[in-house]
């Protein structure tokens, strides 16, 4: 070992203005760390990137030229990917990083708890958004489905949906000791998150009264906002103006906001930074 070191004066060491103190920069560093780790693990890459996308493309490819059923299928498959990737896979990421003490190590640094949680989730959410984009491009260019009528509504829905799934992952990781255990701990929530009509089951497959109740689960308003944003019409077939799509999706975003608050509260309340001993 060689070299000498001197401690800077308190003023030079002060954080002000240094980009390392900015949350966005810190999150970018964590995103890079997660993507590098993913690149090194072929199993994780196959499970979280390649397989879901391949399955998604297969599931939508029979709907070429069928506008309404095609868009409904794309939204359904998007929900499926979001639940398995942003909820199940991210739960395993949080559990693994906690067991490896990476989260504790990050907490000993400059980043705030919130930045660490978001930064750790960022790669998974980014992969999900990229997969959706690939799916949407495939749907429009190859399957000849229409361009989304209001992409802004869809972007907001995607951000709400993935944030809610990520926050529930953080909460659920508290009872998940390892990535293997996540198969078990996320099973009930995966079922709940997919039980919404328009997610796993097609619209109209269940009695209307039951569908109305199940719509209030987190992915009910998500799938509806996605369908309305893409098709520019209600599920009943009523055409909407661009502004009308915003009005139509307001109740969905209201419910999503409630779920977001609930999921963030649960993440803040139950998330654990260190493994349990003994």
């Amino acid at each position, binding site marked *: *070992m*060689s*070299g*000498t*070191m*001197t*401690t*800077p004066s*308190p003023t*030079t*060491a*002060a*954080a002000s203005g*240094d*980009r*390392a*103190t900015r949350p966005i*920069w*810190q999150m*970018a*560093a964590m995103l*890079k*760390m997660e993507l*590098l*780790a993913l690149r*090194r*693990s072929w199993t994780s890459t196959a499970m979280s990137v390649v397989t879901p996308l391949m399955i998604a493309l297969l599931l939508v490819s029979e709907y070429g030229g069928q506008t309404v059923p095609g868009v409904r299928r794309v939204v359904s498959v998007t929900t499926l990917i979001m639940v398995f990737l942003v909820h199940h896979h991210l739960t395993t990421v949080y559990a693994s*990083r906690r067991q*490896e*003490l*990476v989260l*504790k*190590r*990050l*907490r*000993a*640094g*400059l*980043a*705030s708890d919130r930045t660490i949680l978001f930064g750790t989730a960022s790669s998974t959410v980014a992969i999900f958004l990229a997969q959706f984009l690939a799916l949407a491009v495939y749907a429009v260019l190859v399957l000849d489905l229409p361009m989304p009528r209001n992409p802004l509504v869809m972007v907001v829905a995607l951000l709400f949906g993935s944030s809610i799934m990520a926050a529930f992952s953080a909460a659920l990781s508290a009872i998940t000791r390892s990535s293997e255990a996540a198969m078990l701990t996320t099973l009930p929530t995966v079922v709940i998150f997919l039980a919404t009509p328009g997610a796993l089951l097609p619209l109209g497959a269940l009695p209307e009264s039951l569908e109305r109740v199940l719509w209030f689960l987190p992915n009910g308003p998500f799938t509806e906002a996605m369908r309305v944003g893409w098709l520019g019409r209600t599920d009943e077939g009523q055409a909407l103006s661009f502004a009308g799509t915003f009005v139509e999706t307001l109740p969905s975003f209201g419910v999503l906001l409630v779920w977001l608050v609930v999921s963030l509260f649960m993440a803040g309340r139950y998330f654990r930074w260190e493994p349990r*001993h*003994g």
Partner: protein
Amino acid sequence: MTRRGLELSATDGSLMSMDDVVIEVDGLRRSYGEFEAVRGISLRIRRGELFALLGTNGAGKTTTIEVLEGLQPATAGRVRVLGLDPVRDRDSVRPRTGVMLQHGGFTGALTVRETVEIWRSLTVRPQTTAEVLDLVDLGGRMNVAVEQLSGGEGRRLELALAVLGRPEVLFLDEPTTGMDPASRRRTWDVVRELQKGGTTVLLTTHYLEEAEVLADRVAIMRGGSIVATGAPEDVVRTLPARISFRLPATESLPDLPHAARLVEGDRVTYESRQLQTDLTRLLEWANAGNVRLASLSARPATLEDVFLDIAADHDPTDQHAEAEAAR
């Protein structure tokens, strides 16, 4: 007790200027439910000082250091690092401190270089990757995956990340655990260099030799409390020196004026408060009687003796250590 900017240390009675105090702990308590891991400890650490916290497993060292690092809140008492609350003023404290945790905290798939570069972007005014890896002798291991490093190399990488931002205060939790003797000595050199540069260091260690070699002051913890503190030589002076030799049980033994005698079979040990006087007296007695003192040794007490003495006082009904170890 404050007098004209000077304070009598609550723990070892030494006078220190409050301007020089970088770490200040008053009546710190930390509980986990019913279990109290740290039971009202107080200490002051001066700027540029190297302070070692010693203790058996579960004594409360790591809990104490983690409260100072801001990783855990205090249940009661007052803690200040650089005059700031490490939890409430986290944004101001963190850029000026470096932390080496007791265990890893790395993503094993990343290489050493990638790991350091990511941490550089999370550190204020960091050293270059090459500089910091040379400092800990990992310059030749830059492209190796972290999961392929040996235990000692992993600890050195952890040290590199802790000193990356040239911290004013450095927390080292068992920094040399798992290192071979050569790496341990090189780590000591790095710590000394940092101290020369003005860094204040708080370290916990199981290696008493490490504390004796490096520390300006030590505190020995047991059951969540500090039971001895001061400069290593002062702490060591609380125990007598030892003179020991072998002699057939049939021989008579002299009385030494400042020593207590223990005899186990043919092994004779004197615990002496004045080593030179008592040793001279013993040798004079042996020469006069032409007595051969086999395996003769005479040595002052060591920190290890003090540590073992304190550990031996451990109340077997006290479940503190076991409880914290299981936490």
